[in-house]
């Protein structure tokens, strides 16, 4: 039995579909030559087309089309060689034309699917209904003036891909996994940077509830949820609201709602009453978009290795467990780092150091894998010192922390601070003798059968040697001196 919410009158299943708006990575906008870069001076990245001046005609950007095709291929979807643009009509202050150019009846990408991984290790396939190209709107600033709204059209006309899923998800976890997977694929493809904080990836969540085994009931759309965590919270909040209505004998009305993260609830957007009457019609300024099959094949040939394929390869080539491989391929830059590190080294050791020490260091320093405190070459040098016995595992952890703090190389730190592992048997024998002499009572206990004390002696010897004793040799010498080992 999957995820259910226990209501007062029995269990309820949740049905979820996502509409994700992903901002296309391109230099110029979908239909104009104005720049797309984030954070420009207000209204400086606007052409007269974006501002909807009379008489201006849109001309489509080839790269935006290519990005949509690449994304479609990455979603295992059919590419429609013939598609068309329609006008979606509504009035809002940040939409100068009074319509958005979108693709309603004939999207550029049709049905596809992606595979998501869940925390219990299982996988599920989630259907993609379609992907279409459309223009973004401008930005409204409501908090800069008590009675006025300020409008910046820099974002107006930037290309978006709207990616619509089938209502295939049944839990907040699945929706979160879907959104994360979609983001990973887009970032691998280089078609969207996936930055949810800057709004380059935004999700509308369709939620309904039903009794297990029933058909679909009325759904509500929760708009513009801008983090994976909020998507998961919004689904649960909205599902509980709908369950309460059904259980009290009411009827859920189809409507658009907003999630309020602070209060953990969704609320109605009453002003969007007319919003669904968009009166779509084919844009008379734009003839059909016809794509050459050979171009699609060329784009397919130049696609990068995608996360699923990379994960499978990591498991086969490096012998990694699925969980580790999944962590390492979540970002292309992480996978690149790993492959540099693992080359010519023990792949499992490399994976452990990345997933453990390096990821912890990234978290602690707030840095990213693209700008790590220790580069792959540097960590590799450390692993080499560990593998050839120059330093012990314990010292290696210490050296790594010093590398993170100071940026110095592993070898330099080891030499400068005298951290080389001691493999000189005489030095180890001396340390052992000193420890045993200082603990005559414990030696007696050990000899009378309390063998657990062996670990204590090892610890004391290592401490006396400042962690630099070769652990295998320390064990060997201790066993010999204590006898009976």
């Amino acid at each position: 039995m999957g995820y259910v919410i226990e209501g007062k009158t029995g269990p309820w299943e949740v049905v979820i579909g996502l509409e994700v708006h992903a901002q296309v990575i391109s230099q110029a906008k979908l239909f104009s030559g104005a720049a797309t870069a984030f954070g420009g001076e207000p209204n400086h990245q606007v052409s007269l087309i974006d501002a909807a001046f009379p008489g201006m005609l849109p001309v489509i950007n080839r790269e935006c089309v290519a990005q949509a095709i690449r994304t479609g291929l990455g979603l295992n979807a059919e590419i429609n060689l013939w598609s068309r643009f329609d006008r979606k009509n509504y009035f809002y202050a940040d939409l100068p034309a009074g319509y958005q150019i979108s693709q309603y009846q004939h999207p550029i990408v049709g049905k596809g699917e992606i595979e998501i991984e869940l925390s219990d290790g299982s996988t599920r396939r989630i259907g993609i209904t379609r992907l279409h190209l459309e223009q973004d709107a401008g930005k409204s600033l409501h908090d800069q003036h008590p009675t006025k709204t300020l409008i910046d059209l820099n974002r107006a006309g930037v290309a978006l891909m709207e990616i619509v899923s089938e209502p295939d998800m049944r839990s907040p976890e699945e929706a979160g996994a879907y959104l994360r997977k979609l983001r990973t694929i887009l970032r691998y493809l280089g078609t969207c940077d996936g930055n949810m904080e800057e709004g380059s990836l935004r999700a509308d969540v369709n939620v309904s509830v039903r009794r297990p085994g029933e058909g679909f009931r009325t759904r509500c759309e929760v708009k513009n949820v801008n983090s994976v965590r909020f998507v998961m919270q919004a689904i649960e909040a909205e599902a509980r609201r709908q369950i309460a209505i059904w259980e009290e004998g009411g009827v859920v009305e189809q409507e658009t709602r907003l999630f309020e993260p602070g209060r953990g609830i969704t609320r109605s957007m009453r002003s969007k009453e007319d919003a669904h009457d968009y009166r779509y019609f084919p844009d008379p300024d734009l003839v059909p978009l016809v794509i050459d099959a050979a171009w699609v094949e060329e784009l397919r040939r130049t696609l990068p290795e995608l996360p699923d394929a990379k994960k499978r390869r990591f498991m086969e080539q490096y012998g990694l467990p699925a969980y580790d491989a999944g962590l390492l391929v979540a970002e292309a830059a992480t996978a690149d780092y790993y492959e540099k590190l693992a080359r010519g080294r023990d792949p499992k050791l490399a994976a452990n150091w990345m997933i453990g020490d390096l990821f912890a260091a990234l978290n602690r320093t707030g840095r990213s894998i693209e700008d790590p405190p220790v580069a792959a070459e540097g960590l590799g040098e450390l692993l080499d010192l560990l593998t050839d016995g120059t330093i012990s595992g314990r010292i290696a952890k210490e050296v790594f922390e010093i590398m993170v703090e100071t940026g110095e190389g592993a070898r330099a730190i080891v030499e400068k601070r005298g951290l080389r592992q001691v493999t000189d048997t005489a030095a180890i024998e001396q340390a052992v003798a000193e420890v045993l002499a200082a603990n005559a009572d414990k030696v007696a206990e050990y000899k009378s059968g309390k063998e657990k004390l062996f670990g204590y002696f090892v610890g004391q010897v290592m401490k006396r040697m400042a962690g630099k004793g070769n652990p295998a040799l320390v064990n060997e010498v201790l066993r010999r001196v204590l006898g009976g080992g």
Partner: protein
Amino acid sequence: MSLDFETVRRIAHLARIRVEDDELPKLAAELNTILGWVEQLAALDVAEIPPLTGPVSMALRMREDVIDDGGIPEKVLANAPERLGDYFVVPKVVE
């Protein structure tokens, strides 16, 4: 097909055109005339004819992904009824 006054009122509202009640009968009659004319087309058998989506049979031409426009805030804002710095200013529109 015949439009009632309520539908005409709604169409006007969606188009943000202000229509007084006494104008509704005249508008409804005009719209009904147009719809009646379009309905005559339904008598034609077009089962064998592919839909025509534009007056000419051609495909979109594409532009290269090059920044060659923008950087003209004065022109963009030239007709703004009100501005603040380089922003357009409109009455507060907030959910």
